[in-house]
Structures are given as C-alpha cells and as structure tokens.
C-alpha cells in the first residue's frame, strides 16, 4: 500500500492497493486455503442453480411472474447471444454453457455491490484465469472436433483470399492472436474491470472516512462529503460495468465458438 502525504493534512491516509484484495484464510492455520472469495464463487453457483430451478418449477403454459422473469432471462441469452452469434444450425448445443456462464459471471460481479458481501470475486485474477482457460479448451475442442487438427489450424491461421507470399508473416501472427492471446485478453478484461472498479470504490469510501473523521484542515469536511457522493455515483457506474462485463464475456465466448465452427472456404 502506498503512503499518501498531502500538504495541510496529517500523513496518516493509507491509499488502498492490491494488498486489500488478499482476503484472510477462514480456517486459520489449518492448511486449508479457503477465503471469502472461494465461498462466494460456490455461493454464486448455488444461487444461479436454485433461482432457475425455482423459476421453472410451476411449468405453467401461461407463466406467473417469477416463471416469466426466468424465461425472459433465459431467452435473453439464448436468442440475443447464442442464436444471433452462433447461428441457427449449431446454437442449441451451447445454450446451457452460455446461459450458465452469463448468470454465473453476473452474480459474481454483482457481489461487489451487495452490502455485506462487497467483494466481486473476479477481482482475484485466478478465478478469471480459470474461467478463460475453460472457454479456451471449449472453443479449441469444438473446432478440432469439427474440422480435425490440421483443418482447424488452417481455419484459424490462414484466412481466405490472401496471396501466398504473405502467409509466412500471417500464420504466426494469426496463431498468436487467435489461439494464444485470446484467453489472456478474455481473462484480463474481466479481472481488470472488476479490480479497477472495486479499487475505486475502496478509494472513495476510505477517503471519505479519513477526510470526515481523522483529517484536520480547512476544506476537509466538504471534501469528505464530496468523496462520499462520488463514491455512490461510482457505485452506479460499477453496476453498469459489472453487467456489461458479464455480457461481453458471454458474447466473446459465443463469438469464439462461432469462429471455431465456421465453415472452411
């Protein structure tokens, strides 16, 4: 954590930093590395499963409110993401993956704003890496399953219509971009958005606390109130970013699967 020393205010404010994201082990000293973040991950999975199962339990032809909400949520991902991106022919097989991925990431992100929990689990990079590794295995596996290894390699690295002499330059570039860098950017996008947003919220909240209670100086109280108000506004921005990042993660997963399934020319 960095020490901030401002003129006119006692040098006691400690700005939040990456160390604030390292949560303590729950079973202290029991050799089990279980933190609040891992529990939140499991809790999000349980919430998604229970909510969907409860919403389809009535199974009425004319749905009630909860069943309608569940059906709308499901069809948002199925029509808006799966059918539009992957296409009519193959989309049905990937709908369970995309629906669960969208709502899993969404619930985990929304944990950052829920009062007692207040920790978006994907602000710990390891979770984002794991999810991106899963997506990587899936879209490569799907592509190799449909086209075979050499056919899939040709599909990803040699786009149609390029002259032969540019291929030695293009093949390593496309390989790097399509197969090696995609999981990195996928995970880093999710992780960095959640990390930066949570860090901003921490900064405004601890800054408001410090300015209102501990600091001395002429403009400290108004600055503290301003920091608090800005923190609330950044909270609303965080809500938008969280939903958007869940949507983009699922959209990109569908797009990579569609690219792997595309017909060779």
């Amino acid at each position, binding site marked *: 954590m*960095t020490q901030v*020393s401002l003129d006119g205010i006692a040098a006691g404010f400690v700005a939040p*930093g*990456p160390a604030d994201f390292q949560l303590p082990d729950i079973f202290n000293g029991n050799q089990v590395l279980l933190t609040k973040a891992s529990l939140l991950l499991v809790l999000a999975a349980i919430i998604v499963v229970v909510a969907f199962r409860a919403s389809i339990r009535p199974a009425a032809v004319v749905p009630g409110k909860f069943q309608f909400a569940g059906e709308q949520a499901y069809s948002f991902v199925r029509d*808006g993401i799966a059918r*539009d991106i992957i296409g009519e022919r193959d989309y049905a097989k990937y709908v369970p993956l995309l629906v669960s991925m969208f709502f899993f990431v969404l619930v985990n992100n929304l944990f950052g704003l829920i009062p007692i929990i207040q920790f978006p689990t994907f602000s710990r990079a390891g979770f984002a890496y794991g999810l991106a590794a899963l997506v990587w295995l899936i879209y490569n596996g799907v592509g190799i399953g449909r086209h075979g290894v050499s056919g899939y390699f040709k599909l990803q690295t040699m786009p149609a219509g390029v002259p032969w002499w540019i291929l030695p330059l293009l093949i390593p570039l496309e390989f790097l971009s399509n197969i090696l860098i995609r999981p990195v*950017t996928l995970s*880093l*996008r999710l*992780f*960095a*958005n959640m*990390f*930066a947003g949570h*860090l901003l919220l921490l900064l405004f909240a601890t800054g408001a606390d410090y300015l209102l209670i501990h600091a001395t100086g002429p403009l400290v109280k108004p600055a503290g109130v301003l920091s608090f108000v800005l923190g609330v506004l950044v909270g609303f921005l965080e809500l938008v970013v969280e939903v*958007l*990042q869940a*949507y*983009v993660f699922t*959209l*990109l997963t569908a*797009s990579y699967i569609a690219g792997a399934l595309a017909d060779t020319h």
Partner: protein
Amino acid sequence: MSALLLAADTATTKGSLNMIGYGLAAVGPGIGIGLIFAAYINGTARQPELQSKLQPIAILGFALAEALAIIGIALAFVLK
C-alpha cells in the same frame, strides 16, 4: 530520459511513473471508443430501424477497445 528515471527513483519525487504510463496508454482506447460510437451513431442516423441490430456490435467493439485501457490501469496498480 535518464533524468526522468532518476527522478522517479529518488525519494523526493511524489507521484508515480505508473500513472504517467497509464495516462499515455489511455489515449489509444479513448480515440478507438470514440470512433466506434461515431460509427454506431452514424449508422443509426442513416437507418434508425437498425439500432437494435447494431447495438451488440457496438457493445462488443467498445469492450474490446476498452480492455486495453482497463489492463493499463490494473497493471499500473499491480506492478511496482
């Protein structure tokens, strides 16, 4: 250049070279996102009924361009 690095090393300098790096890195994504949404607004202005068909493409482009800026701010905090 070496004076800049020297200034960042000594204890008398306040501020962070990481943040200067982030500020420079945010120029590209800023321009890119502006271009993407300019194209989206132009497309909607020419043919308003296409707005909902163009929206997922605009959101996807925005997220891809913003990823670089977000990676910049995250690594500016994480790397010392």
